[in-house]
């Protein structure tokens, strides 16, 4: 286990370095964007004196490295700084918006795993037959539809035509659990693509595993087919799927931007969009740190899972 320990520690260290790199990159890129928060705030009233005043009020007149230094040292005390646009602490932005995004992401993952794995196993079990062809056709088809279009389609049919579900979550604020009906369509949109990719992956892994010599050997020993499939073949198919799942969760945090905009859910994606538009650098940076850490932790977890299920796969650090 100590081997696994050093391996995990090395991964963590690397993850930390990756997060720092992300933060620096984001800072450099936001600096490189044309215009700053003062210009964005001034809009089409770009009175030079007013822009200068805003810039001074926001401390934007100080050199970039000083601002980066201040911000980074604050970060060590879990102080993400204050928003340029409102003067409120960035932590309040993140904590306020984290709930809805987390809720959407976890609901999606909770449904995604059984659905994706189940469909994949099903397709693999009936490889080349009608069920497989049906599952493959539907998953490939849905995968090809952009989320935004899929969302608009779902809203038009299920909310506006049939009147079964609310078209948006407008006015519900962060308390989405009190209005579960409003979550159905967003989660469906979020599920649509990952379910497809995951089930394709599980299907492929299962087919490979079922064709492998060790499964043939297990069959020769007379072990029942269901047990062979689930205890012997599935873990090998799950290893790559776990890593895909981690990537999916990253993607969920981003894909959520589209869904949040479409269904008016005040989550991290909405905050990020507004912050970029306003050149609210501290908020963008704070979110970059959060996304960076989440990505690193999830991938670490996925690699651990893969390591555990299929140690022979030699997961690289």
């Amino acid at each position, binding site marked *: 286990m100590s081997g696994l320990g050093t391996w995990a520690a090395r991964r963590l260290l690397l993850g930390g370095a990756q997060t720092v790199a992300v933060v620096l990159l984001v800072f450099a890129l936001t600096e490189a964007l*044309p215009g700053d928060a003062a210009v964005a705030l001034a*809009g089409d009233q770009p009175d030079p004196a007013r822009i200068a005043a805003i810039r001074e009020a926001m401390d934007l007149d100080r050199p970039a490295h000083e601002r980066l230094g201040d911000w980074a040292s604050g970060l060590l005390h879990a102080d993400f700084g204050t928003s340029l646009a*409102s003067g409120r602490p960035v932590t309040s932005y993140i904590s306020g*918006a984290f709930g809805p995004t987390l809720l959407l992401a976890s609901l999606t993952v909770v449904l995604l795993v059984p659905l994706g794995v189940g469909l994949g196993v099903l397709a693999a079990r009936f490889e080349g037959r009608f069920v497989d062809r049906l599952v493959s056709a539907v998953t490939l088809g849905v995968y090809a539809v952009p989320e935004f279009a899929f969302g608009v389609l779902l809203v038009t049919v299920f909310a506006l035509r049939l009147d079964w579900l609310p078209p948006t979550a407008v006015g519900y*604020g962060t308390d989405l659990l009190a209005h579960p009906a409003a979550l159905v369509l967003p989660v469906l949109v979020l599920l649509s693509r990952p379910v497809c990719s995951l089930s394709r992956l599980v299907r492929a892994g299962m087919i490979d595993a079922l064709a492998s010599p060790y499964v043939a050997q297990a069959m020769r020993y007379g072990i029942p087919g269901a047990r062979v499939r689930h205890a012997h073949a599935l873990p090998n198919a799950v290893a790559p799927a776990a890593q895909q799942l981690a990537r999916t969760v990253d993607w969920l945090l981003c894909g959520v931007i589209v869904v949040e905009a479409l269904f008016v859910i*005040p989550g991290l994606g909405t905050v990020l969009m*507004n912050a970029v538009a306003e050149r609210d650098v501290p908020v963008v940076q704070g979110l970059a740190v959060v996304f960076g850490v989440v990505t690193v932790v999830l991938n670490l977890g996925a690699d651990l899972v893969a390591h555990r299920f299929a140690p022979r796969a030699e997961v690289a650090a």
Partner: protein
Amino acid sequence: MQDHPGLRRRGFLTAASGIGALALVGCGDSDDSGSGGSGQGGDSGDGKPRRGGRLRAAFAGGGASETLDPHLANLFADVARAKALFDKLADYGDDLSAQPRLASGWEPNAGLDRWKVTLRKADFHSGKPVTAEDVLFSYRRIADPEKAFRAKASLEPIDLKASRAVDERTVEFVLKRPTAEFPNVLAAFGAYIVPDGSSAADFDKKPVGSGPFRFVSFAPGRSAVFRRNDDHWDGAPHLDEVEFVVANEESARVNALLGGQVEYAHELNPTTARAHEGKGQIEIVRLRNSAMQAFAMKTDRAPFDDKRVREAFFLIADRQELVDGALSGAGVVGNDLFGKGYEYYADGLPQREQDLDRARSLLKKAGAGKLKVTLDTSAVAAGFTEAASIFRDQAARAGVTVDVKMGSKDSYWADILDSGTLCCYRSGAMPIESHISQRLLTGSTTNATKWQHKDFDALYQQAQSTKDEKERAAVFGRMQRRLYAEGGFLVWGFADWIIGTAKGVKGVDRKAPANTLDWARFDKVWLA
């Protein structure tokens, strides 16, 4: 959906703000006290107002950085909320003339540089009366040199050190120079009256104003709930409550309206409006003359330093084609002047039409036969990129090569201010006087056409020191005739502002351009 709606809106609004900045000299007349005021929105066919209910209104917003500080109001959503909670001394009527609100009247001295403003009897939500000290406190807060509040430039003509409270309900404003159109300053965007001693922290927690609604709750970027103020001086609102919700995506606002989740959706696309107009499901309200659409030519540099070239460009534009193409038909053609339908608008001038032959001969005379110009545009506002490509094709027919250059939408307005020669431009509603003072004087801070003429400045000063309204209108008319003949703004259209409401919503004003008193005014709305 490529564009970021937040920004587009911000850009537009900002245009409309800062009204009255730099109002110079003036003169003016005193009349006006109790006139007009409160437009009761709606058309007469709405029946008798019914009391009660909660109206939910969806606006595009600014997300988590929104605030209820009325002096920071930046976006349409901010203004609508500020308007519900607070009052200004005056506000703009449908023709952009100043209408008294908290001020019951105003009276200048003979030199038009001292104005006595009387306050009506009105109370803050705390029960305390609105006094002259509150007015001075609010204006001093806005003018704080350490801060960059939006209305600061508008209040510039006031010498706040010398101004004083004569008594509880009379303020004497001392101005730095004669200003006939001083009431425009009182109506300036963001010049709300807050109680003496208010601090920034108060506004987010429990804002106290004198407006028609009282504060109930607020979550930035999500929702704000306000309740009826039964003691409002202009009469209690019909609604029990109004809730402002934020939905940046136009499709989300429309869906929420169609699905019955909101009763009022602000800022819809022309295509959405066409799809639902007259279908009976929702009502479409078009507020005419809400946004000027123009191309701005820099008059201080080649080729536009030659007024024959400018006139040729005026004649190249097929305005109807631009309105149909770039605004999806939701608007009316312009006549190279700002402020169609507003007070002082020179509406007697002949409508300019496309005349390519004359344009070609003017260009030839100016020695610009094979002219090539770069047209700056950006996705910063709806219709900008479309307008640019339509105009490129129109210009080609007159032998002018227009090279369309896309700029960044986040810094567009600052980028085009001093650089380039020709660009897409637009502006929200503001008095014609403010448009002139902000954009067409030598010292104007946002003079995108570089229109700098001493004699034109002098005319503006003359208007601001003319007390007689007729004479003043004549001076504004002269200035506009000059702009029509050789100005730098090719104003090709005025866009509608489109609002959707549920069937039962009554009393929504159909004439007020966006940003005026009766626009987004929920105290006069009721649910049938």
